[in-house]
Every structure is written in C-alpha cells, then in structure tokens.
C-alpha cells in the first residue's frame, strides 16, 4: 500500500515535471492580414491546447521589425512570410543567402499567385465597358477608359503598393509595350482602400493583387492573362508561384524542439485558408470561432503535425 502511494506520488511528480517541461510562453507577432492571422491562430491553438504552451500575441506591422525582434530573441516564431513581398529575406534567411538570424520553419502550405485584376462589372454583362479585356495586351485598347488626370495621356494601373516588393510593374509595361503607367500607392492598406472605393463607385480600374487574399472575398475580381513566368524574360512575364513559409528563432528547434517541429510539419491548403478567410471577412464571423470549427472538423489533419502523435 505504502509502495503504491509512493509510486503514485512519483508518477504525479513526473507528470508535473513533464508538463512543465513541455510548457512555456512563446511570443509571436499577429500578422497584418487575415490569412496570416488564420495560419498563426491554428498553430497557437495546437500549441496551447495540446502541447502545454501559452502563446503571447503582439500586434505590430509585419516587416523588418518582426525579423529584428526574432533575431534579438524577443519573438519566437511568426507566420506566413511571402518571399516576393519581403525584400529583407536576403539579409536574414539562410535559404536566400542571409546570415541565418531568422530560420525558415517549413512552408505554410498555401501557394500564392499574383496577377493584375479588373472588376467583373468591367468585362462581363450586357453594358460592360471593356468586354474584350482578357489579357494584359488588351489593355492598350482601353487606354482611354483607364486614363486619369495625373497619368498624362496613358492608362493608369495600380501596381504593387511598395517598391520594395520588386514587382517591376513599370518595367513590365515598357517591355510588353503597354501604354500604361504603374501607380505605386506606398502602402498595402492604401492599395485596398482605393480598390474598394473605386469598386463601390463602379469605376474602371486595373490593379495588382494576389490570392489567397480577403480582397477577393470582398470584391468580385477577374484576373488578366499574363505570359507564363519565365526567369529569362522577367519581368515581361507573369509572376512565379509564391511559396510562403513560417519562420522563427534559429535556436527554437533546440529550446523547444517539439513546438518547432510541429510548426515545420504544419500545412494548410489554399482552399482551407480561403474558406476560413471568407467566413471571417465576408460573413463577419469571429476568427477564433471559425478556426476552432475548422480544427474540430479536421482533427486528424492537424494531429498528425504534432511530433510523436500516434496517428
């Protein structure tokens, strides 16, 4: 009897020790965009509910600040870096020739696709003003439609909002002989705001955007056809597919191997993420609720990410 008591106490003590070892606080920045938030929320719930961690979320713009925070050890991991939109990857991430102060923690799973988009009311329907606008070359036939006060006789295309994204919109227009200027709004928020307002007024516009993104949930957009990506002809072509990745502290794999491995194993498909984005941004539902719903319905999927799980 005494022996049994002793054993139980030992087992309890071991259990406590084990959970204390597994637990801890991980700090992660909250992404600026719904997709990134969804990805991080899924990881957070797994870490908190299944692996004994507490995740502290910090709101700050996703950019070099986050990388510096990771390098200094203030942040442990972050979700969804899109390589095309991050001009600092060459400085921090080893896979792009950086100093390795930020480690890649596996791909997110989604595949990003960029293009130029026009609103559907512009190209479809009985009184659509540009029914034959299908490819980027067709833009030249509708220069007058897209002309503005400041564009100096050319059409106006809303290019990549930030020059650091290296979209090369202006060069593409030149090389393909499109008589358009590429306006650069400076910030992503401004880009979406202008699109949203122009859409509400049913004005013509052609703008850069990518998928998966909440803007497609809010506005009905059609992608223009661009020449397929070709490294040698760039930027006279469309974009390469974008493979976003999760990232974090390089020594996370040593200090918290299971958490790091789970993040590396995790994978969300375009469809899965887009469905959640739609529910959050169009139906206006609570993000936690939507993510929990997905987790309840796909338990076998995410359980397989946890290292040492039996599935």
């Amino acid at each position, binding site marked *: 009897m005494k022996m049994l008591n002793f054993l139980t106490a030992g087992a309890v003590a071991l259990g406590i020790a084990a959970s204390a070892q597994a637990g801890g606080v991980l700090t992660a920045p909250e992404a600026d965009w719904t997709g990134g938030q969804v990805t991080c929320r899924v990881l957070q719930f797994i870490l908190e509910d299944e692996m004994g961690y507490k995740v502290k979320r910090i709101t700050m713009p996703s950019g070099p600040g986050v990388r510096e925070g990771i390098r200094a050890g203030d942040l442990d991991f972050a979700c969804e870096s899109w390589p095309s939109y991050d001009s*600092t990857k060459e400085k921090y991430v080893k896979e792009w020739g950086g100093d390795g102060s930020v480690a890649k923690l596996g791909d997110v799973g989604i595949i990003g696709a960029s293009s130029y988009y026009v609103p559907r009311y512009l190209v479809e329907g009985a009184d659509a003003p540009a029914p034959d606008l299908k490819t980027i070359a067709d833009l030249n036939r509708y220069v007058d439609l897209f002309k503005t006060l*400041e564009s100096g006789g050319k059409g106006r295309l809303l290019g990549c909002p930030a020059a650091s994204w290296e979209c090369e919109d202006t060069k593409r227009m030149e090389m393909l002989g499109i008589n358009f200027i590429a306006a650069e709004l*400076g910030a992503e928020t401004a880009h979406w705001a202008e699109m949203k307002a122009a859409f509400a007024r049913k004005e013509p516009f052609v703008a850069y955007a990518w998928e998966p993104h909440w803007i497609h949930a809010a506005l009905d957009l059609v992608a223009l056809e661009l020449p397929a990506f070709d490294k040698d002809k760039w930027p006279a072509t469309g974009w390469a597919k974008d493979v976003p990745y999760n990232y974090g502290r390089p020594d996370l794999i040593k200090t918290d191997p299971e958490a790091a491995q789970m993040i590396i194993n995790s994978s969300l498909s375009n469809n899965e993420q887009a469905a959640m984005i739609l529910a959050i941004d169009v139906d206006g539902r609570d993000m936690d609720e939507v993510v929990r719903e997905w987790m309840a319905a796909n338990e076998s999927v995410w359980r397989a990410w946890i290292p040492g799980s039996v599935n």
Partner: protein
Amino acid sequence: MRQKSRYREFCTYAGTDYSLFATIALSFAFSLLVWFLTHGQFAFPKAVSEQFHFAQSINNGEKWLQKNLREYTRAVSSVIGAILESIELFLWFKPWPIIVIAIGLPALAYGGLRLALLAVFGVMFWGMMDMWDPAMSTLALMGVSVVFSIFLGVIVGVMCSQNDLVEAFVKPILDTMQTMPAFVYLLPAIIFFGIGGPSATMAIIIYAMPPVVRLTNLGIRQVPETTIESAQSYGTTRMQMLTKVQLPQALPSIMLGVNQTIMMALGLAVLATFIGAGGLGEEVWKALRKLKVGWSLEGGLCIVFMAIIFDRLSLAMSKPASSGLLVDPSQMTFRLLPQKWVHWAPARMVEIGIGWVWDFVVRCSGFVVHIACAGVCWPLEKVNKTVGQSVRRWMRAHGILVFGLLLILAILAWDTWVAKIGYFPKSLQFTLRGPVDNAVDWLAVNPTFIGFTKGLRAFIYLYVLNPLDKFIVGLPWWYVLAVFFVVVWRSVGIGFAFVTVAMLLFTGLAGLWGITMYTLASTLASITICLLFGLPLGILSAQSKVVDSVLTPILDAMQTMPAFVYLIPVLMFFGGNPVTAVIATVIYAIPPMIRMTKLGLQQLPEEINEVSRMFGSTSLQTLLKVKLPMASPSIMLGVNQAVVMALAMQVITPLVAGLGLGKEVFHAMNTADTGRGLVAGIGIVLLAIVLDRLTQAWTRNQRYALGL
C-alpha cells in the same frame, strides 16, 4: 542706400510702398526665366553624389553599436519594461472607478466642475467604446514616458540655463529630436531596446522631451535679475539659488513644457504599435489594416479624449489660482454654465441647485477628511508632537487629495472584501462603428460629394501641386542654392545662410536632391492650400462667435486625432495619388493656421475699427488694409507652425501615395535600411529647420516693421 530708396520711391504708388511685392514679383519672373532657359538640365550631378556613402557608413556604425552597446541598452530596457508592466497590471486589474476618481478629482481641484465633468466623461468613454484595457496600456506607456521625459528634460534644461555653451550645443539637437521622423529610429529602437514598451518609451522620450528642456531653460533664464540679486545679497549658494529661487519661479513655464510634452507623447500613440507596444494605437492600426473607418475612429477618439483631458488638466495645474474650491460662496459664480448667462433666471436656478450639491459634497468631504485627520494625527502627536502637527497641517491643506486617496482605498476595500466590481459595465457600452462605416460608404458613392472631391483634386493638381512641382524640381540646383542663400541672408543673417547652403548641399551629396525639391514643392503646395482655406476660416471665426464655437472643438480634435484615422476616408474619397497626400497634410496642418489668424485679429485693439470707420473705410477695407496687415505677424506664426507640421506629416503620407523624402524614409523602414532612412530623415530635418527659421524671421521682421 540711395539706390534702394530710389527703388522704393519707384515702387510707391498712391502712398503705399509696394517694393516688397515688386521684389518678389521680379525675382519670381527671373526664376521663371531661368527655369525656361535651363529646363531641368541641371539636376544635381550624379558623378559627385556617387562619391558619398553616408547611408553605408551609418549602417556599418549601427552594426558596430549592435555588437558593443546592446548589452547595456538591454539592461536599461529591462528596467523600464518591469516598471511599465507593473503599472499596466495595476491599471488592468484594479476596479475601473478608481481610475475615474484618480483623474476626475485632480480635474475638480484644479479646473473646477466643468473640467471634472469633461475628465470623467473622457475616462468613461474608454470603457464605453470597449477599449478600457488598451486605454490603460496607453496610459501606462504615456505616464512612464512623460515622467522620464520630465525628469531628463528638467535636468538638461537646468544645465542649459546655467551655461550658454551648453545651450548652444543642445539647441540644434533638440530641433533634430523634434523634427526627425520617428520611423527612422523605430527599427534601431527594436534592435537596441527590444520589442514592446521599453522601445516605445525610448522613442517617445526622444520626440517629446524637447519642450520641457526648452521651457525649463527659458523659465530659469526669465527669472528677473533683481530677484537673483536680492537672493545673492542673503548669501545663497548656487544650489540654493537653483532649488529655492529659480526653479520655483520657473514652475509655470516648466508646467507649460510638461503640457506640450504630454501632447507630443500622445501624438506617438499610434506609432508605438509599430514596435509592438500595444494600447489604443493597436486598435487604430488593426482597424486601418482592415479599412474599418468606424473602428479606427473609436480608437482615435479615445486618444483625443486622453489628450484633451491631460491638456486641460496640466494647463489648469500650471495656473492653480482658478481652483473652484476657493470660490467665495456669497458670490454667484457659475460652476457649469457660461458665466454670461448669469442674468438668465433658469440658468441661475440650475446653478443654485448645483451649488447646493456642491456645498453638501464639500462639507461631507471636509468632515471625512477631518475625521481621518484626527484618526491619523492624534496618535502621531502622542508620539512626536512636531511630526504630528506638520502632518495635520499637510492633510488640511490637501483636503481634496486626502479625500481622493480615502475614496480610492474605500473602493479597493469594497472590491476586495465586499463585492468584486469587475470590468466596465457592458450596459454603458455603445458603438460608433456601424453608423460611421455606413456614412463613409454612403459618401464614397455619393455622386455630388465625389464630384466635389474630384473637382478639388483636379484644382489642386492642375493649379497648385503640378506647377510647383514642375517649377521647383526643374530649377537648376545651383540656382536654388543661390536663391536660398540670398533669401536666408536677407531675412535671418549671413551665418545661417551658409549653414542653409551646407544643409542643402548635404541632401544633394546624399543623392536626394530631386526628392528633397519635390518635398519642398509639396510642402509649399500644402501651405498654399492651408492659407487658401485657413485665412478665410480664421477671419470668419474672429468675426462670428457661432463659427468660432463650432470650429474650436473640431480643431481640437483635428490636432489630437491620429492622422492614421482619417487617411482611409480621405483615400476613399480622393483616390490614391500625390494630391491625396497634400489633402491629408492640409487636414493635419491647418488648425494652427486658423487659430493664429483668429488670434491675430482678436488681439487688435477695438479702437482700430472706430478709427478706420472715422476715415470712412468700409469694414472690408478695414479688414484688408488695416487689420490683416496688423495681424500678419500672428498669421506668419501660424504659417511657421503649419510648415513644421506639414513636414512632420511627410512620413505618414506615403500611406496614401505621398512621394518625396517621406516615402524614402518609409521604404527604408520596410527594407531594414537604417542608413537610407536616416539620410532621408536628415533631409526632412534640414528642410524643417531652414523653413522654420525663415518663417520665424519673417514673423520677427514683420513685428519690427509694425513697431510691435
């Protein structure tokens, strides 16, 4: 001399000297000629600017500092972080009425019932918007940063006041601290002080400390010579002189500096989010990212109320004579309603009612304090008589404070032992999001409104921004240098003229000449629009009380509302283009323009109207020929403030497609290129300093010419 007078004579028509206008017109015509002849051929030579690598060396310096300095800065930041966190936790978990009392009672003591009601409403507003927790975080961050700023600022200010050399050394540093865009040092702040509160505290101290330094220095230097001498005749030491004579005398001035520091600190509330400091700025930022205008307006209004409460409170504290508690009860003094209504019976009735309540509360609190005083002092006096008596005197003198402390202790006790007070009641909460979002969506598609915005945009682009841009950017660089040299020489002095040229050369050597000139052009465009709208509005509000009372709260809100809040609606109405950036800048910079115009006109003596009427001039003539010229120093001061604010806005406008140096800073921040950001930031600082000195000198010269 002789020639000048002949020139003046030539320019005089019907008794008025038009020589200044003639000079401006002639030099403008000449500049146009130069522009036409050279037409953009003389851009700053690339071969020269390529030899300079400012940005590169700054980045190398940063790397070195990172290796050698970071341990120490991290130690500092962990101390600040611990302080911040404990305050934040206290504010979060203590019952909310405590905060209401802690802010409301000082407002009552120093500013009377009106300020107290405003303060209580403002504090409750945070809860009503369901932003109590973020508001507490911001409060903690602002509190800690302001206390540090005051502490450091007074020390530096005292040092400046004791030694002219120190003052001369510190002044340009203060100018730089105030005008250097915070975006430039946010990333280094993360590197050296980590993510979150401590970095934000550092950034706020850098930006908000200068006014305390300046006004401490000024206050001490303004202590009359006779006071100093008489103190010296009693044989005071230098330290005694400082602590017993100079600092107390300078206190009103220092308090004014504290007021400005608080306002500037709150101006950084949103930027704090860029380094993960959370708080109300986080709400604004999150809303902005999702284009939720109503949500960001709620966050913005919470910041506005915080700013207005602490602005009014610190102003009231700097002139404590107006305490409502010292009012003689035999005299009918209105506590809530405007004193002008004293002859209106219903108003008197209301005030009598308020008076009863007031007297009752004052008696009750007096009674409570009396009992507390007896309870504390009686045993103390038994032990040590002198200590007990001085405590009693202190408690009597600070009745309100003691009462407030007792009230807070009572609430804490109630919360701990009787019933948990908990979170701000849900029943008091309401939301502005729906109506505001609907209004913005409705306006964005309203054909009349959009017609108006498109017209305004076309006007600004075609007649203001584009011509200025083409003209200034197209001028040869050596010609611009020469013009700046002559203008600054004639209005400020030869020494600063050389400094100006050196500064402008720096931007050229750094490879930023064209961008700097564009920034100059768009700033001038913004100032032109500010004058175009600000002058009439200022005149109107000087003439009409109704206009004034409508405008004043709007201007208050415009000055304290974070620019991020109105960027999105402005963008949705005007579209993304450089004109939108100019419009956003005008919204930010126009309040001082309107205020100073109004102030300048109101300060003129009444007799001017009568005198000019006697000479048979119409009121329009009086306004144009007499009053506006006499108010011109004040208007010029408004221009001066508007210029500095417009340049501060440059780094925000890239969010709405603004171009120029601000965009350069913004991009540098997005690519972790501190050197590039710093060089562009220095460009903004240089423009700000040059334009500030120039407009200040014009104000001074105008005052001198008017014999003021």
